[in-house]
């Protein structure tokens, strides 16, 4: 059972996790900028670290997460191995999915993240299935599905909310409202100003939280997960945050007002939490420096691991389609 009263050790862990996620993704930004060959679309969640960290830190080991194209933070918070995650992002043989997933489709069954979908809005129906399996087998776990405000426009999300509401499935819907769907502002793509209010229509509690406040996200996650665990059915959390980078590193956000980006940069969840922990005397500058250096070292080691790993042998392109291969 998770503590509602946070210990200073736990607070330091929250901070450390956010720093690791940020460092990891900043390294990807750097690799994209260098002449480095990073394949595919690198879609990052800079600025959204408090959601990944706050929600995932509230989970129990048996809980399942279903992530999306912006998955690095969710998976790192859940404890994914840094080396094989980075190697997969580099599409290497030692990657967690042996070069078949890349940055967008990372799935890591060993940390209970067996499905990731980049089809916008497809996660919630998958979560229905996972949560149904938990309910059917009387397991204690909850399924948490992350999706964006853009995905909330997909019919599949509504179907999933309705079915889970009828069957009282243990799902926590986490809508990361980061203000953008591609190049469309939230106001341009959503008739409703508050997505969490849709929860009422599907007979589940829906609440909104400051998505850049890691402790607030953690506390609301605990409360809503408790609802899901108690057999009362699904719950919905809308985290208000901001997409600091574009839809892929090739997207230079020409459609974004720079002042808006600057304003959100000041609300950075990591800077904000660092200040709070400094003020509370839980961290000092030396400790922070050690945390940052440790993150840098771990990420550097992951890149070295990825660099050293070969690209997958071409004949492995034909494997893993079916459990038993056949020729057709």
């Amino acid at each position: 059972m998770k503590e509602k009263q946070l210990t200073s050790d736990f607070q330091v862990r929250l901070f450390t996790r956010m720093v690791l996620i940020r460092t990891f993704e900043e390294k990807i930004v750097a690799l994209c900028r260098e002449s480095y060959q990073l394949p595919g679309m690198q879609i990052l969640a800079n600025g959204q670290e408090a959601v990944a960290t706050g929600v995932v830190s509230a989970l129990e080991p048996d809980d399942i997460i279903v992530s999306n194209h912006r998955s690095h933070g969710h998976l790192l918070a859940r404890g994914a191995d840094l080396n094989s995650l980075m190697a997969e992002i580099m599409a290497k043989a030692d990657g967690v999915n042996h070069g078949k997933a890349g940055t967008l489709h990372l799935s890591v069954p060993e940390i209970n993240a067996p499905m990731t979908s980049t089809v916008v809005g497809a996660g919630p129906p998958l979560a229905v299935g996972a949560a149904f399996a938990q309910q059917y087998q009387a397991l204690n776990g909850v399924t948490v599905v992350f999706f964006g405000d853009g995905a909330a426009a997909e019919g599949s999300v509504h179907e999933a909310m309705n079915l889970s509401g009828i069957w009282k499935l243990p799902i926590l819907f986490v809508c990361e409202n980061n203000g953008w769907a591609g190049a469309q502002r939230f106001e341009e793509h959503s008739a409703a100003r508050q997505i969490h209010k849709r929860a009422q229509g599907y007979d589940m509690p829906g609440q909104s939280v400051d998505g850049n406040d890691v402790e607030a996200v953690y506390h609301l996650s605990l409360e809503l997960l408790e609802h899901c665990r108690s057999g009362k059915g699904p719950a919905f959390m809308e985290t208000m945050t901001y997409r600091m980078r574009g839809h892929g590193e090739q997207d230079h956000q020409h459609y974004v007002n720079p002042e808006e980006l600057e304003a959100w940069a000041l609300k950075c969840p990591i800077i904000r939490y660092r200040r709070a922990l400094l003020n509370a005397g839980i961290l000092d500058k030396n400790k922070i420096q050690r945390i940052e250096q440790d993150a840098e070292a771990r990420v550097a080691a992951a890149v070295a691991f990825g660099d050293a790993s070969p690209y997958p042998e071409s004949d492995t392109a034909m494997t893993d389609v079916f459990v038993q291969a056949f020729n057709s």
Partner: protein
Amino acid sequence: MSQKTFGNAINDALSTAMDMDDTVFIAGEGVGVSIHHDPNMPTYGLLDKFGRRRVKDTPVSEAAIAGLAVGASCMGLRPVVEIMFFPFITLASDMLVNHAGKLRYMSGGKSSFPLTVRVKAGVGFGAGSQHSHNLEAWIAHSPGLKIVWPSTVEDAKGLLLSAIFDPDPVIVVEDMMLYRMKGECPDADIRTPLGKARVAAPGTDCTVIAYGLALYTAMKAIEPLIEKGISCEVIDLRSLVPLDKTCILESVRKTGRLVVVHEANRFCGFGAELAAMVAEEAFYDLKGPVKRVGAPQIPVPVASSLEKVFIPGPEDVVRAVLETMGK
């Protein structure tokens, strides 16, 4: 062995699988309480027998039904979900094509999806185009999905049981026009292997491949052809993916001719794949052009006089065989 209808055989398979294995559950629109209160319907009586935990009536939400199957199978269950009419698989296709078929591959073989989708299909009951449209070529074209299509009562049970206990996603197509057809069917747990075709009628002059209801169209063409001195070997394909190339090629190498019959649109239909495969692998054994018998490239019309234009009949098969024989 006993006499069963095709619908009863499917029911028997579902019941057998659920008796054997608690991870098997069924879900779909009206799989428990159906608008059709008919003992020949595949899920009739299963709610009474297995209860609401294992027989799940769903809202009208094909994406959620298919998502349920994908997510639950990934967690180790064996879902058997129903799509009420074949054209509605378009609503479930993201979950099937992009998820059931791809997530195993993208996971590097770490996640598996042992799900079954039963799809009710068929042309011939005047329901019109949005309730009648055979899309097997779409499924077969999507990597990671298997698709089978029984034509006999025994295979209706045997293929479904094989599909349910297969480790990969399988789409099982049921011709609704066959639900009331009677035939012999063992009472035991029987498995028709996926990827094994069946010679439904031996012959020497021309191979005719069909599946589902179209098999009977092909069989009806045999007699008039025998009267003309032509012996056809009819192959019941049973499984489109995996495809039994060996059976097809052996037959074509013997007869030197091929006619493919299905009720789906001929243009870009599954018959095109069979024709191309045979042209690639047995070209020098062919004595005449490969012929395809299928529907014209139109939506399915309602009036029976128009529907007959759509559905290929035995006379179309006879004509195609005569053409490839040069007669």
